[in-house]
């Protein structure tokens, strides 16, 4: 029983990290109609910058958020301006952002080499810290990622439902021309949302740097999980992303305990196929932005 409980807790918490990694892509795809694969590069680049700031200046990895988030917000803004300039639509965005992903990966390999990088235990107090309820462990780094995902999802829900900006985002997502007719500036909305999406991806990178060993090829392994979460959660739906991340995390964790680790990806992708067949609009459709 303790084993199963640990598997479930682990799945819930890692689901938070999956959600955090998926938020940027989900918002970008749902609200801006940009399928932005560059977010994988932003997560990775953010993780490397956290590593470098921590190792070079001895900063607490969590404190780097103060530098990382504004920086990547700016990157997101500039990227969206470029997309406007290049008239990138939904399907062109796949190609363009894949190119950006490759460019950033190459830059990362050139800068940090292909070898593995990890923040040493002396500089990373969160790496293996946990607190316990009975015999069940709650790893601190994963818990922080989970709480961050929840807070962001809640904030985005309030932003989209209770503010003028949120209404503007939804209007732009549904019909940009009509939104413009009602005085909404779609470009301004898109630029701000792109900045936010990129900052969320960067935040995921902070937790990746705290908990994992980095190498330039790391991002390729995230594709399956992240797109499963995005599609299951519903495009542009931050709360849906958290729910989907938890479902996938728990399903994989329980499958690992019950049937072995090889069953985890099978269960994950069965869930994805089920979602595509029966809920292609996502789990929490009524709250979707698009």
């Amino acid at each position, binding site marked *: 029983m303790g084993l199963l409980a640990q598997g479930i807790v682990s799945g819930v918490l*890692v689901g938070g990290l999956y959600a955090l990694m998926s938020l940027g892509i989900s918002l970008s795809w749902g609200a801006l109609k940009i399928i932005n694969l560059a977010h994988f590069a932003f997560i990775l680049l953010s993780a490397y910058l956290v590593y470098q700031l921590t190792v070079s200046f001895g900063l607490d990895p969590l404190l780097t958020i103060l530098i990382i988030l504004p920086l990547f917000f700016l990157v997101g803004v500039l990227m969206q301006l470029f997309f406007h300039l290049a008239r990138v639509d939904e399907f062109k965005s796949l190609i363009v952002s894949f190119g950006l992903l490759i460019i950033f990966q190459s830059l990362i390999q050139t800068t940090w080499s292909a070898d593995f990088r990890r923040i040493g235990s002396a500089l990373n107090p969160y790496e293996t810290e946990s607190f316990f309820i009975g015999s069940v462990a709650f790893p601190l780094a994963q818990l922080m990622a989970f709480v961050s995902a929840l807070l962001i999802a809640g904030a985005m829900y309030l932003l989209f439902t209770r503010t003028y900006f949120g209404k503007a985002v939804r209007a732009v997502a549904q019909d940009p021309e009509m939104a413009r007719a009602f005085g909404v500036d779609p470009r301004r909305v898109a630029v701000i949302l792109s900045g936010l999406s990129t900052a969320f991806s960067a935040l995921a990178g902070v937790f990746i740097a705290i908990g994992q060993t980095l190498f330039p090829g790391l991002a390729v392994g995230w594709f399956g999980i992240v797109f499963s979460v995005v599609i299951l959660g519903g495009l542009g739906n931050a709360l849906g992303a958290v729910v989907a991340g938890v479902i996938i995390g728990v399903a994989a964790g329980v499958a*690992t305990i019950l049937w072995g680790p090889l069953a985890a990806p099978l269960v994950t992708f069965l869930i994805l196929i089920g979602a595509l067949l029966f809920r292609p609009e996502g789990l929490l459709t009524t709250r979707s932005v698009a």
Partner: protein
Amino acid sequence: MRQHRRWSYMAVITTLALIAAACGDGEGGATSTLAPGTTGAPQTTEAETDTETTAATGEPIRIGGTLALTGVFAATAAIHQATGEVFVERLNESGGLLGRPVEWVLLDDESTPDLAAAAYERLITEDEVDLVIGPYGTGNITAAMAVAQRYGYVFPHHTASLTYAYNYECHFSSWSTGLHPNITNPNLLYDAIESSGTPPETIGFVVNEFPGTMFISYGQPDTDEGGAVAEAEKRGWEVVLDVTFPIATSDWGPIAAQIKDADPDFLFIAGLGLDAPNIINAMQTIDYQPAGMFVQWPAPGPLLGTEGADGIMSVTIFEEHPPFTDDPEAVEVAADISQALADSGVPYTKVETQAAASWTAWEYLQQAAEGAGSLDQEAMCNWLIENGADTLFHGNIEFFPDQQNYYEDLSKIKQVQDGDWWVVYPSEFAAPDRSVIYSP
């Protein structure tokens, strides 16, 4: 709208699948439509044909090969690149090969077997290289070997793990694991553990589904030969855990929980690369540490900075301490390789299995050509089989054709002690004042 979105999802997923395939997905062998020509211009390392060169003259001898310069194996391939560059540079400085300068035509196989095969096809048929040297990674080596065999090229290679699968009469492995590492490697480890005087009563296995680690753990598929698991049982150790995990595992928590639940006296991690640090970290977060651990083929650097990794064991063929460094030339070469690794930005610069195997493969090629006195592939192949090779890191090697050109298992057991790797078994190869530390 709903229908449109469904097709939109399908299109995106299909595109992503193609992208993931193009990026490579590990040793299993992704399919890609990219031609090797798209991997960029070949990189070459050539003789400085100025006054510093002693005697190398004439047309360069072109040696073709690929490495995983990008993709998931790039971290380890960087070691092979640095080692190869040092070898070629030193070879050219000492007069070249058969009196001619040597040029290494190096392509990027992007960590993908089918790209490696296509690149070797190009190197042999279009670039018409004189010699070839193997790539890095079991899948890539296996794929490239088939091409070398088709054209009859001598094929030295470094760290391919599926020994039973390589029956090409002109392949020469520089990874001295012997033909049956699934038997010899575990028994070497188990002997090392028993040398501590307190053997375990229980043992647990966590096995990466990568073919090489499956082979080590369970033996050759479709045979009853067995591997590490069966060999442990033969010693009367109870196997209390035996789980296989996917190559692309991202959540290690449930696996760590299973290990804690089984609580083995000794944990055998049949993993590679970052598997061990990831598992150890996950175990640390649930406040668990087995009494002893072994990992098959780890990336050496990351484990040293991992909390809870002290005492973990692994296999090696060379470490930078006596008695391996008793030969001054080995020290000199190791220093050159370390410097090359540092220059290329690699954080862990000590020479160990990867660099030593890489260097040895180059030695095979050099000695085959010099021994045969020509670049005739058949003559080179026959010369190596008849004469073996005199190597810097392994000493004299004799290839046994009845064992698919393999020779004895020269592996040693190393252990992390006081924050660094030390060979601890067999005792004649152990670092001074070092021995196996294990107490269940």
